């Protein structure tokens, strides 16, 4: 039931563009519609109705229904008016739609054409339109012209039954066909929906691809084995060309002449279906400079190449710089070696002279010198000798930095024993308590480690020389994943606050008279430890001995400790 705005229909002129022109809509409806007042006066009619009843709108509006559409006077059994009137009456009373059975209701030709009645059959339905108070405002009379259909049914009187059957069949067929068509339409509609969804999905994916293509910082492109770029992403602008310029030029023209041959070879490989991974070549930028690119390319069967290029110019420069730096370092090292070598010889020779002749004077011309003179000569001699030791020590220190580390499993415990044996052999009268704990094997240079222990144990030996109950200990302790080695003695020790430059060359904490030494030993030891990527530190107290701790490898995971076999 629709509610009509009382102002809506005839009062309003062809409304403003924003308002829907319901009158035009109604009159254009593809259906036979007639709108009546409760007094059965015609107030609206669709074009189709006029056409079907051969009437003109302006001639029938406002007039009574039956005045316009009387019964066919020639038809004695006409029931049209009566039945229609009855149906309309029911609608008015019951305020409900009323469908009529197929009704014969002839219509008259226009007066201009003679006014004769033509047979018509209709299937009408009458519906009320109620106002707010529930009263009938209008009645919509909707009719279906079924004249042809009825005629079809009447046609062959003899085979009425057959006709009926045929008609029935036709009906059934038509019905079935109608159903089929409905189903087909439905299927078509869902296919359409699917198609639309697929297209939408494709569209989304294309947008996604476009997004990635545009945003990628890497240079993406699509090219052909014919030698041209087909599409490049904005990242390619890094070369200084526009996309147009890039797609117009055969890409080989942009490649550095030295790299062209191998680039062509690579494209050839791609055309045979192989992938390109990590291929490098140089491309000429718009400004004439070259940049190194690293390529990842995949071909498809049609000869289209999908490629990603990464600018590795900086890396290449770094590589070159690194190589140059390495060469410089190696050259410097070689120079240092040569220098050290000549230093050793050229400095030592005069020292020999100084020492030798001072001694010669002492021996051969002893009579010419008094005690003081002899003392001076001895000092000269001692000085030269000491200088010799220092030169040797410095040479040793420099050698540690220069030589190649040859790592292999070393048993430090055994090495320590050997060193202490030698020390004992040099001073058989000394009684020293020696404790060597089993230690895990380490991966290190045997010569350097020997020198390390020579120095540390030598120091321990030296600084306990004044002690009657000397004790030297070599052991290990664990700290997290690291093995820490230590050499402990109970000798002269040193005060920790003086030890800031313990490992610096020539720094001594005792006089030469107390304990002889060059002051290079610990510098040497530290350097050996550092070359093994370890750490070294000391704890001591004056007159209470010293402990030197060291590790021989970077902490934790990269420890060069080899599993011990517990052999001594």
């Amino acid at each position, binding site marked *: 039931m629709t509610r009509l705005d009382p102002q809506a229909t005839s009062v309003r002129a062809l409304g403003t563009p924003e308002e829907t022109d319901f009158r035009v809509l109604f009159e254009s409806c593809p259906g036979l519609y007639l709108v009546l007042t409760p007094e059965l006066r015609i107030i609206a009619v669709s074009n189709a109705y006029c056409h079907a009843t051969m009437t003109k709108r302006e001639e029938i509006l406002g007039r009574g229904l039956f005045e316009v559409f009387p019964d066919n006077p020639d038809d004695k059994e006409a029931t049209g008016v009566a039945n229609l009137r009855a149906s309309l009456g029911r609608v008015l009373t019951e305020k409900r739609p009323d469908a009529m059975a197929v009704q014969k209701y002839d219509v008259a030709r226009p007066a201009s054409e003679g006014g004769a009645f033509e047979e018509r059959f209709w299937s009408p339905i009458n519906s009320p339109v109620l106002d707010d108070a529930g009263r009938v405002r209008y009645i919509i009379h909707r009719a279906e012209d079924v004249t042809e259909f009825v005629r079809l049914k009447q046609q062959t009187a003899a085979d009425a039954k057959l006709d009926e059957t045929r008609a029935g069949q036709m009906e059934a067929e038509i019905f079935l066909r109608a159903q089929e068509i409905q189903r087909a339409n439905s299927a078509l509609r869902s296919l359409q929906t699917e198609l639309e969804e697929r297209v939408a999905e494709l569209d989304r994916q294309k947008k996604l691809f476009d997004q990635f293509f545009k945003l990628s910082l890497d240079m993406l492109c699509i090219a052909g084995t014919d030698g041209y770029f087909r599409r490049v992403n904005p990242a390619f602008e890094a070369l200084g060309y526009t996309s147009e310029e890039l797609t117009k030029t055969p890409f080989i023209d942009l490649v550095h002449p030295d790299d062209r041959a191998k680039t062509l070879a690579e494209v050839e490989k791609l055309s045979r279906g192989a992938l390109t991974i990590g291929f490098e070549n140089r491309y000429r930028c718009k400004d004439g400079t070259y940049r190194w690119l690293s390529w990842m390319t995949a071909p498809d069967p049609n000869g289209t190449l999908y490629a990603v290029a990464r600018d590795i110019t900086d890396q290449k420069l770094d590589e070159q710089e690194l190589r140059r730096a390495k060469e410089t370092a190696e050259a410097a090292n070689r120079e240092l070696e040569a220098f050290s070598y000549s230093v050793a010889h050229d400095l030592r020779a005069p020292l020999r*002279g100084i*020492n*030798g*002749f001072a001694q010669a004077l002492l021996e051969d011309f002893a009579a010419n010198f008094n005690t003081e003179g002899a003392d001076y000569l001895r000092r000269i001699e001692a000085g030269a*000798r000491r200088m010799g030791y220092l030169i040797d020590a410095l040479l040793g220190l420099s050698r540690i930095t220069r030589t190649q580390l040859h790592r292999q499993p070393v048993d430090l415990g055994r090495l320590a024993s050997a060193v202490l044996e030698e020390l004992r052999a040099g001073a058989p009268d000394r009684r020293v308590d020696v404790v060597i704990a089993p230690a895990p094997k380490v991966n290190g240079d045997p010569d350097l480690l020997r020198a390390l222990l020579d120095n540390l144990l030598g120091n321990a030996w030296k600084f306990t020389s004044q002690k009657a109950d000397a004790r030297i200990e070599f052991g290990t302790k664990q700290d997290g994943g690291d093995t820490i080695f230590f050499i402990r003695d109970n000798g002269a020790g040193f005060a920790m606050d003086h030890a800031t430059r313990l490992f610096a060359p020539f720094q001594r904490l005792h006089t030469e008279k107390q304990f002889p030494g060059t002051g290079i030993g610990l510098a040497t030891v530290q350097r050996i430890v550092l070359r093994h990527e370890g750490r070294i530190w000391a704890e001591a107290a004056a007159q209470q001995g010293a402990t030197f701790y060291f590790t021989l490898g970077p902490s934790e995971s990269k420890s060069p400790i080899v599993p011990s076999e517990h052999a001594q």
Partner: protein
Amino acid sequence: MSKNPEKIIFLVEDNPDDELLTLRAFKKMGIMNEVVVAHDGVEALDFLFATGTHAGRDAISPQVTLLDLNLPKLNGLEVLRRLREDPRTKLLPVVILTSSKEDEDIVRGYTLGANSYVRKPVDFTEFAEAVKSLGMFWLLLNETPPAARAP
């Protein structure tokens, strides 16, 4: 100590201080053998092959040759190489006596056929002791190959 004058010690040393000190050391240790000195590599070869400045006399085979490495004109290793190439001097006992303790030199010395490698210490007393040991060994203990003996 040996008083045998036939056993000659050949010293190849360019440094006059070292020369003097070495001779003094020999004397101090009681080594009375004749010591011949050459001051550069060429002179050393001339003496051993009786060529050049030493031409005109029979070649002399010293009991032992003390060879320094740093020599002008021709260095010690080159001298050694040539000595070893020549059948006359191939078996001559040669002791390299030098300041260098570099592994390279030691290896090269032995590779080229030196019989021994001794480092010259700075301290003279040590040096004298070394000379004494050398003397004791090469002059008294060591047997020279027959071809090298003086005719």
